[in-house]
């Protein structure tokens, strides 16, 4: 049982965003516990990216509320949420291709002031193992390294919550192993909200799972509970 005093890091209430008739996010009540690795799963088009976009402030909801550690942040612009500790990495790699790897991360680092800028930047790069490539133009990196760079940018924000949208997509098996141990090393200081299609990764590292389907929460629970849930089996794990 969650204790009464311990406040969830993020909570949403009846969060809704429709695109015309399409119910991308439809009345979602969601709780993200501090220190969790929380996986968000569901079929393509279930509304996962749209939902985390609402959390990060990329879009504004039509109704409902979002709380960060109890504070209502529903109307806060994205950049202000970042400063409050919500970091977002893009499903489609979004970096600064013509800038150096160093500058890519430094932009994130300087959000929290410019003291020790280069030390902190190099530390964030070292964390993902890109410290040797800092002088390279980001567009010259391999795809896997660009994903890692994206992750380093997120970490450099020193977030309370790190939202990762399909971070292992397109990675080689060896890179996925490295990614899993990296994510494990982040908690509990950082809470991770992870959209992931690779069920092996999910079952391996997630401490909680929420299943989204047609913009609604189908089930939420521990990996064991989700695996056992008939509704989930039918709708998603089905095969």
């Amino acid at each position: 049982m969650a204790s009464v005093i311990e406040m969830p890091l993020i909570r949403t209430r009846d969060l809704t965003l429709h695109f015309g008739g399409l119910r991308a996010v439809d009345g979602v009540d969601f709780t993200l516990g501090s220190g969790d690795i929380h996986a968000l799963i569901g079929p393509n088009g279930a509304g996962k990216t749209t939902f985390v976009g609402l959390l990060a402030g990329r879009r504004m909801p039509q109704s409902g509320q979002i709380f960060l550690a109890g504070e209502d942040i529903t109307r806060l612009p994205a950049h202000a949420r970042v400063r409050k500790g919500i970091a977002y990495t893009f499903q489609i790699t979004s970096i600064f291709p013509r800038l150096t790897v160093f500058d890519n991360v430094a932009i994130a680092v300087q959000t929290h002031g410019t003291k020790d800028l280069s030390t902190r930047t190099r530390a964030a790069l070292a964390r993902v193992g890109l410290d040797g490539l800092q002088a390279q133009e980001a567009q010259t990196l391999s795809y896997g390294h660009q994903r890692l760079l994206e992750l380093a940018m997120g970490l450099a924000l020193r977030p309370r919550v790190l939202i990762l949208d399909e971070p292992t997509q397109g990675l080689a098996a060896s890179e996925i192993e490295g990614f899993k141990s990296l994510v494990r090393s982040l908690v509990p200081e950082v809470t991770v909200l992870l959209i992931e299609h690779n069920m092996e990764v999910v079952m391996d590292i997630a401490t909680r799972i929420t299943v989204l389907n047609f913009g609604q929460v189908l089930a939420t629970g521990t990996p064991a509970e989700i695996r056992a849930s008939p509704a989930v089996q039918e709708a998603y794990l089905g095969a």
Partner: protein
Amino acid sequence: MKVWTLHLGLIVVLFAAQFWLSPYHSTNLARIMVLAVFAMGYNLAFGYTGLLSLGHALFFAAGMYGAGLPAQLWGVTAGPALILGILAGGGMAAAVGLLALRTAGVSFMIVTLMFAQAGYLAILYFAAVTGGDEGFTLPAAARSIAGLDLSSDTPRFLAALTLFAVGLLVSLALVRSPFGRSMVAIRENEERSRMLGLNPFTVKLVALVLSGLYAGAAGAAYGILFGYAGASFATIQYSILPMLYVLLGGAGTILGPFLGAALMFALIEVASGVTSAYLFLVGAALVALVLFAPRGILGTIRERWAKWLP
């Protein structure tokens, strides 16, 4: 190190140039340096932050009239007039930015163009004060600083060089600062920047105001050094000019604006000696540039050979 040597070296060379250039050419060089300051300001907005403005004539004119009118009406001297001009340029950019930066891309171009057009019409409308089309010559008092007569060749050249040097070094320091990195981040990928905690509106507004301060300084200096303020400096032509300088020299390079201003000036000088249709030659040169070196001269040099160029 290499970077500072290059830029300080240019300033030294320009200083020396007055001793071997004819008075005619050193006056032209003074003009080029002042226009280069205008272009450096344009470059901060366009080259580094990605703001394609078609309204910078307004900021240039704000500087020119912000310095010229107080000189004309109340006898303000050159130093204070220059400061007033700089503030007028920055203030105008702030006012325009607060409204125009709600738009982006083509809309931003159109909105800034409209503001500049409104400014031009306002100068004509208030002809009783501004002199309208005719403009006015600045009084002698406004053309001297610390006992130096800015209408004579050497002091004028030195004043232009000083302004240019300050503008160049400030923009170099700015571009290499964390804020410079933020400007480039907004230019390269605004959405990503937003998700890294940057407020795009604030960054763009500050960049535009800095740009306006430069344009204001250039407009004020132009009026003070060459003794005339007129509505022609508020026309669209003066919004296009700094853009051409920057595109020719290399957008997003520190020395590009100066290089572009100097080359364009030389090109017009040569072309107008050859044919009365010199604008045609200039246009042809620009088309060639866009086709073969879209990053401008220094942009291309940086890409191919000198990655370290700021």
